């Protein structure tokens, strides 16, 4: 190998010998966030002073964003990740599960990321590139990307920072719509929550789903065959430019007021992405026919440096890249920038050199990439090597030469952790006038219709839609054309419970995902998570982090999967440092996503009520746990309070879900909705509000109003035929669950309810109208 470490010292930083202050100044002077001890550690590992390209590379790769240095050991400790049905688990760009069908095994691919910091600085571009990035994560597994979901946490659009919050909201919604609509990937759902704690730190989490035949999955690594024949590293997409410089490090620092970062901003191009995805189908077909093994990975944080090192290191190879072969804008972009710039819309292939010309032809000629964007195209960037080193040439010189393992094995930081005692139970909220309470909720952002947001998202493109945003508790799409399988997907992470009791709230997030999937008729198969937290250097934040992980893991294990084993987390992301400088960290804000299977989508179920006279059955278990609920907040009982133990709740929800699925598949459950925010009463209202054709339907609550009707996350409401309710109750008793008729479906769009001795009623259309106007005029 021609590399020689001796030529590397030029322009390097004397990381081994400088005093702390000078080293610090040296690093910060170049815009790096690498910590002093990390720079020294790098110098020690290399046995010399690192060159600037090397420092930039490690700055990115050892950042929190890329290395999970503060969280990896904890994720491993708490989260179940194993399962017989997992094709690709945590560690690659996306998780993959196997779904057997009459037409062979299919693969369902799922990835989950955050794009919080970029969206705060430049909302439109930040959210759009978040969508773009998650689509790449799924596409690079070889799958067709068939949907996205977005979980959004906005500030209070009516609060002290309303103007700024609204600007960010509009930008985020426009960005998601702009990218998703143009790239042609339908929106399958998501959620939006509003709280002043996010006023200065919006959360934008995105999930992408993909589908392909199981045998078509491509791994993000050089195949073993590269030991016996030459493999090229081919870069595809935009030329490297100076946008998105330092993005990985950027996501790992606290935002500091007015001087927001500039270079870190990333520029979305869904048009170019669409052409790339179309070309990818042809390239994959050609490669499959050739019989060659290949590797494929997307470029995100850490840019070329990250993709080249990781795709090689994943199978123990090294790589030699030549930055002179890369198209750069401007031409003289320094090597260290070319190495780590996070220019969007790029992928990298590892293919046998004999097939390289055909790959280049498809992208550059057949799909005319160079005509779609100046400088775009497919080009050779380097070649994989057996020496296990990461070698970079630029201007004819070696500018980086490090053991590949050192880059990708990352580092680990164990921050101090302070865990708080479990909170005490909260008192039962006393509600004087329940109708007034329902009316006040109906005009609050929490209960607002999200239609003013998702009307901007194309939920129909690709023609696979079965259940769309707003139609049911989860989105659902067709697994394969002509087949009966539906794939359901949903996200959850209720802020109230998480703030009240992080461990219990995390358990609820997992259980809600499972209930949401089951309410549509889907058996939960796998989860992903994105852990949005504050500053990990704050022991309280790390305490909450562990609480949440523990809760997620306990609930997922207790819920399990059919055939045994825990409900696994197959992919995920950690986003730390969500705070403004000097301000408090955001409360723990994990988002859990889940995917489930409906064997025959004809049984897909919605909350929409069907038939007057049918009972609306409660199924679940009431515990009088009101912490973090709307009811508690409405009567001033905010703050911490105990929630059900995640393991207990997970086991309970498993029994509920089995009964619900049994009923749905037997055609005995006509409508289903999980009892979530606002309790059984609000849940029943939601079911009734959009029901009836042509005449609206309503509900009459059977019992006199009692506070339990506002208890959240305690079960399901199910519409069944009168003759089927007895059997459901019997089966519930066997499962140790409560089951009784909560309400009766009535003609006419009213809610009828007794409080005290008084019979009261409210027109559902009035509540629905209030709900639908809250966000109007605020989002774009």
């Amino acid at each position, binding site marked *: 190998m021609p590399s020689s470490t001796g030529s590397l010292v030029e322009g390097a930083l004397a990381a081994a010998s400088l005093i702390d202050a000078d080293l610090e100044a040296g690093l910060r002077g170049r815009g790096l966030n690498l910590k002093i001890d990390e720079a020294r550690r790098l110098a020690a590992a290399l046995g010399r002073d690192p060159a600037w390209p090397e420092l930039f590379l490690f700055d990115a790769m050892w950042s929190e964003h890329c290395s999970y240095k503060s969280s990896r050991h904890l994720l491993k400790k708490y989260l179940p990740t194993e399962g017989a049905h997992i094709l690709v688990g945590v560690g690659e760009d996306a998780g993959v599960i196997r779904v057997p069908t009459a037409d062979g095994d299919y693969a369902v691919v799922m990835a989950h990321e955050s794009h919080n910091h970029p969206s705060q*600085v*430049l909302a439109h*571009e930040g959210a759009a590139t978040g969508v773009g990035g998650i689509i790449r994560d799924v596409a690079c597994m070889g799958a067709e990307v068939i949907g996205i979901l977005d979980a959004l946490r906005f500030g209070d659009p009516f609060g002290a920072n*309303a*103007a700024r919050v*609204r*600007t960010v909201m509009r930008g985020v919604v426009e960005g998601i719509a702009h990218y998703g609509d143009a790239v042609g990937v339908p929106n399958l759902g998501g959620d939006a929550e509003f709280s002043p704690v996010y006023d200065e730190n919006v959360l934008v989490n995105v999930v992408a789903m993909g589908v392909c035949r199981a045998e078509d999955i491509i791994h993000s690594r050089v195949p073993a065959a590269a030991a016996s024949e030459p493999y090229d590293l081919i870069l595809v997409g935009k030329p490297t430019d100076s*946008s998105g410089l330092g993005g990985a490090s950027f996501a790992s620092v606290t935002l500091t007021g007015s001087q*927001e970062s*500039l270079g870190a*901003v990333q*520029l979305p*191009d869904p*048009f170019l992405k669409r052409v790339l995805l179309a070309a990818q189908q042809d390239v994959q077909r050609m490669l499959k026919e050739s019989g060659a093994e290949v590797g494929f990975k997307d470029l995100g944080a850490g840019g070329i440096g990250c993709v080249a090192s990781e795709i090689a290191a994943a199978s123990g190879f090294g790589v030699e890249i030549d930055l002179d072969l890369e198209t750069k804008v401007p031409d003289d972009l320094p090597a260290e920038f070319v190495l780590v710039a996070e220019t969007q819309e790029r992928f990298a292939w590892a293919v046998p050199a004999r097939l390289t010309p055909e790959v280049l032809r498809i992208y550059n000629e057949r799909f005319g990439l160079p*005509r779609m*964007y*100046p400088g775009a195209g497919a080009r050779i960037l380097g070649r994989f090597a057996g020496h296990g080193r990461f070698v970079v040439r630029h201007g004819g010189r070696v500018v980086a030469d490090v053991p590949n393992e050192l880059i990708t094995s990352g580092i680990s930081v164990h921050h101090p952790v302070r865990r708080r005692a479990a909170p005490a139970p909260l008192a039962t909220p006393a509600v004087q006038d329940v109708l007034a309470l329902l009316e006040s909720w109906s005009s609050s952002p929490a209960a607002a219709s999200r239609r003013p947001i998702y009307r901007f998202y194309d939920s129909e493109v690709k023609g696979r839609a079965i259940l769309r945003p707003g139609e049911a508790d989860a989105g659902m799409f067709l697994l394969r054309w002509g087949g009966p399988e539906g794939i359901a997907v949903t996200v959850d992470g209720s802020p109230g419970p998480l703030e009240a009791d992080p461990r219990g709230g995390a358990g609820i997030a997992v259980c809600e995902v499972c209930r949401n999937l089951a309410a549509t008729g889907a058996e939960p198969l796998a989860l992903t998570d994105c852990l949005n937290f504050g500053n990990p250097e704050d022991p309280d934040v790390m305490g909450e982090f562990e609480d949440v992980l523990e809760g997620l893991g306990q609930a997922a294990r207790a819920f399990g999967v059919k055939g045994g084993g825990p409900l696994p987390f197959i992919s995920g992301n950690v986003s730390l440092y969500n705070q403004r400088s000097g301000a408090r960290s955001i409360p723990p804000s994990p988002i859990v996503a889940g995917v489930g299977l409906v064997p025959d989508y004809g049984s897909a179920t919605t909350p929409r009520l069907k038939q007057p006279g049918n009972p609306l059955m409660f199924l679940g278990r009431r515990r009088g746990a009101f912490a973090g609920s709307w009811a508690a907040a409405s009567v001033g009982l905010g703050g911490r309070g105990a929630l059900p133990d995640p393991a207990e709740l997970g086991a309970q929800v498993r029994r509920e879900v089995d009964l619900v699925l049994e009923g749905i598949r037997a055609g005995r459950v006509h409508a289903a909705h999980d009892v979530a925010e606002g309790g059984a009463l609000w849940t029943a209202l939601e079911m009734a509000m959009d029901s009836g054709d042509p005449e609206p339907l309503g509900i009459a609550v059977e019992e006199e109003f009692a506070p339990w009707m506002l208890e959240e996350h305690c079960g399901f409401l199910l519409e069944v035929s009168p003759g089927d309710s007895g059997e459901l109750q019997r089966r519930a008793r066997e499962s140790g669950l409560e089951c009784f008729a909560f309400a009766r479906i009535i003609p006419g769009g009213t809610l009828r309810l007794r409080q005290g001795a008084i019979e009261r009623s409210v027109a559902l259309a009035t509540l629905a109208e209030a709900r639908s106007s809250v966000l109007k005029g605020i989002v774009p």
Partner: protein
Amino acid sequence: MISDALYVTLRVPDPSALTALAALRLMGPKAPVRLERGRVWWVSGDPGAFESSQGVWFNPNKERGLRWNAAGGFGERRERERWVFVRDRSGSPEAGALRSMRERGLPEPLGLLSATVWRLQAPEGVSPDEAAQAASVVRSAFQGLLVNRHSQAHRVGPAPASLTELEQVLSELKREAS
């Protein structure tokens, strides 16, 4: 009446301008040699409008705003250049800014006008007016691009020489569009 103006362009490559220029080049020899897309804002009655309401007019993280100055307009004058002002016949390009100002509790300016601007530079040997005409109004599949007069009003001319002239162009445009 005190008035002021601002011209906003992207600080990064503008895909719309790049694509439009490529399309025009395929359409014939009168294609401009340079094409830039921007947005122009004109306000009256509030001399401090652009300072007091930063963030309303453009996002400095991706755009730059050039203030009008009496000596040189929006700065850099280019040879053989024409400005094509475009305004949709529906909606209001000013509405978003006015909403942002209201949300921020800022006083609304007495007058506010805006339009999209395509700045195009004619090739040697083609008169700027001819080049602008060839590039602007769509007549058939192979003539014109930047303006569909059925949904957009437009004006073509040299770079505005004064604020009064700018105001005049923008208010004519608004009148025609509504």
